């Protein structure tokens, strides 16, 4: 029987767990990583198929992944099976929890958009006049952001705008904007709406994952072992010291229950799974806020216009390209809107019109689609949700997953702030596209259910006050000092920005602090 005691147990192998393993092993700390799912073999587990060879002609098996709108029949097998690991919600308040349990987690599939949070997010309460600030500022995270940008090989255009902090970007060659992007950028600027470019991780060979950027060095150090198909049931605690001393897990195939010992524990199971684990373990919740303040961005609000001069294949050089509009609302004190916080916008030029925009069919519809092809400009938003105590997860004691582990009940509702923000975003985008003289084809201020953005954060939030936060500013549990949560759970506000760059910077910072504390024997 193996009774080895590891320095650190890491639960989860995605971006956050990968970063913890990378940093801790560099410092000579021995780590064991447990990951709930198997390791995918890209050659064995993927096949080239044509859509008509699929049993459901690309529609996917009806009802199989009702919450994963992103799933297609081609990708259905990469996501967590909702029957194997279910969760519950009020039917009137759906939540789209999109999960991956393969080794590497969601880092295998993410879109690689990489933006820093700014002090408009870290110090949100000062601007909003409500809510809480993070216990850290952009300056605290800046050096870690820079190092992470180096690892991910992020490219971006430097702007010098405080709401959109620049970073350690690869020299990117931005081609001249097309006429349509130039026109809309100029109109935006005249309204105080600044246009920039997407910032994205290049990674290596199109992959910016823990499995190719973070875990290889950790494994090469000889200090990391990874166990796949190991589903952690609970963190175990020494009754005398109150410190974490390992975890109970179940082998996914044999269903054998196991225990592993460690001097410290890093939880990196991907925000909601980390919180579920802590709740099921009965630890880290003296504040009563564990599971609360769940957030992500609102997605779906979109306006589409057609450029008349670009119809019927004319002036193709006028179309194409994209722009990223960082948050522009509520940046100044005294700005009056019926919502706090703000939203970013993604502008894409040169797209096709969707058949649904036209009340037509048959040849008539086809003529319109052919005429409008390539002439469309769309504006879609990334809107920040307000962190609210009521938006929470709790354990549903009556439902368990395939391994008998109680599941989460998720309860997130929209507030007037989200609804008002969505209306403002749709109206602003419409105003811009109309001002350009383009024909509005479609406008919606509706948005997808929460969770859809796959940017779930919060539920283990950080703060200086142990009475109102779960973690301190080092992502360390206030209650159990050798326990760290290094994924998106620690976020105090979600921002309009995609979260992964910040998750990685926080995980790096927490892991260096943890290593230091372990080396000094404080932990």
């Amino acid at each position, binding site marked *: 029987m193996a009774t080895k005691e590891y320095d650190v147990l890491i639960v989860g192998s995605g971006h956050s767990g990968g970063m913890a393993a990378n940093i801790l092993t560099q410092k000579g700390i021995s780590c064991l990583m447990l990951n709930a799912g198997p390791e995918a073999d890209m050659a064995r587990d993927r096949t080239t*198929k044509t859509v008509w060879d699929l049993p459901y002609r690309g529609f996917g098996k009806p009802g199989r992944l009702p919450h994963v709108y992103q799933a297609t029949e081609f990708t259905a097998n990469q996501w967590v099976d909702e029957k194997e690991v279910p969760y519950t919600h009020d039917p009137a308040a759906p939540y789209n929890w999109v999960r991956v349990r393969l080794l590497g987690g969601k880092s295998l599939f993410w879109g690689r958009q990489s933006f820093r949070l700014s002090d408009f997010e870290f110090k949100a309460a000062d601007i909003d006049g409500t809510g809480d600030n993070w216990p850290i500022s952009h300056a605290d995270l800046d050096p870690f952001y820079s190092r992470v940008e180096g690892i991910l090989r992020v490219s971006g255009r430097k702007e010098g705008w405080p709401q959109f902090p620049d970073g350690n970007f690869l020299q990117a060659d931005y081609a001249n904007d097309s006429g349509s992007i130039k026109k809309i950028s100029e109109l935006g600027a005249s309204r105080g709406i600044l246009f920039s470019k997407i910032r994205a991780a290049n990674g290596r060979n199109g992959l910016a994952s823990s499995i190719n950027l973070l875990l290889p060095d950790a494994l090469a150090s000889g200090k990391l072992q990874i166990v796949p198909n190991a589903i952690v049931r609970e963190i175990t605690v020494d009754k005398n010291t109150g410190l974490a001393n390992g975890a109970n897990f179940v082998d996914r195939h044999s269903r054998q229950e196991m225990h592993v010992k460690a001097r410290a524990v890093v939880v990196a199971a991907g925000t909601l799974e980390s919180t579920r684990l802590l709740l099921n373990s009965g630890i880290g919740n003296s504040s009563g806020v564990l599971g609360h303040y769940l957030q992500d961005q609102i997605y779906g609000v979109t306006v589409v216009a057609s450029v008349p001069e670009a119809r019927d294949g004319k002036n193709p050089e006028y179309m194409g390209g994209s722009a990223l509009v960082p948050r522009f609302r509520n940046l100044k004190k005294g700005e009056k809107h019926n919502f706090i916080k703000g939203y970013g916008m993604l502008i894409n030029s040169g797209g096709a019109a969707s058949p649904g925009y036209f009340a037509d069919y048959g040849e008539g519809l086809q003529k319109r689609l052919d005429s409008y092809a390539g002439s469309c400009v769309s504006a879609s938003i990334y809107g920040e949700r307000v962190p609210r105590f009521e938006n929470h997860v709790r354990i549903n004691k009556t439902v368990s997953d395939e391994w008998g582990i109680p599941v989460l009940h998720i309860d997130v509702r929209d507030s007037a702030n989200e609804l008002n923000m969505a209306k403002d975003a749709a109206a602003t985008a419409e105003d811009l596209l109309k001002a350009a003289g383009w024909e509005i084809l479609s406008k919606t201020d509706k948005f997808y259910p929460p969770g859809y953005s796959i940017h779930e954060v919060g539920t283990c939030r950080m703060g200086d006050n142990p009475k109102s936060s779960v973690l301190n500013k080092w992502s360390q549990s206030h209650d159990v000092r050798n326990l760290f949560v290094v994924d998106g759970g620690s976020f105090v506000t979600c921002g309009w920005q995609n979260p992964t760059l910040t998750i990685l910077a926080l995980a790096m910072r927490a892991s260096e602090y943890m290593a230091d504390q372990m080396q000094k024997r404080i932990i």
Partner: protein
Amino acid sequence: MQTIAAAPAVPVLLTPQANAQQTAAPTAAQPIAATKAGTVAEPVTRFFTAPQFAALRKLAEVLMPPIGGNPGALDAGAPEFLDFLIGVSPVERQQLYRTGLDLLNARATKQFNKSFAALDAKQADTIIRPLLVPVPWPYDPPKDPGSHFLIAAHDDIRTATRNSREWGAAAAASGRRGGGGQQYWNPVDPIYKG
């Protein structure tokens, strides 16, 4: 032809297609079993009633006729495919289709004293056109159940047609894009099998 880079190590990972690849393939230049089922037999519906299915076929014919060398919905077997798909779909989807197809027949009977399937193109248009509304966002369907059905069926008929083998063959024959394969994730070490 799909390609399998290496023989899968674990038998449960084999898909039916992968299994088929491993058996010796017939080498005859011409297949000896080449008669298309549709040329010798009538499709039997599994889910829709005969009047519902006849209305669905008519709807498919009208909404997506053959255009510009592409097959139409009937050539692509879209109604037969939808009979299968809706038959295994959640009950709300089934209800939407049943109610919608019954509505088309009821309106056809009321206005023209005929079933929807028996209408000519102009008559069908007088029933379809008022139900067609623009849809800015597919997740916010029209409140009117007739419109909701028509929008959903139109979208499904288009997708079933464009994702058909016939569509792919026409695209390949004319040198247009659309006949290629995409990466498909096999079940990775499954516990449940979907």
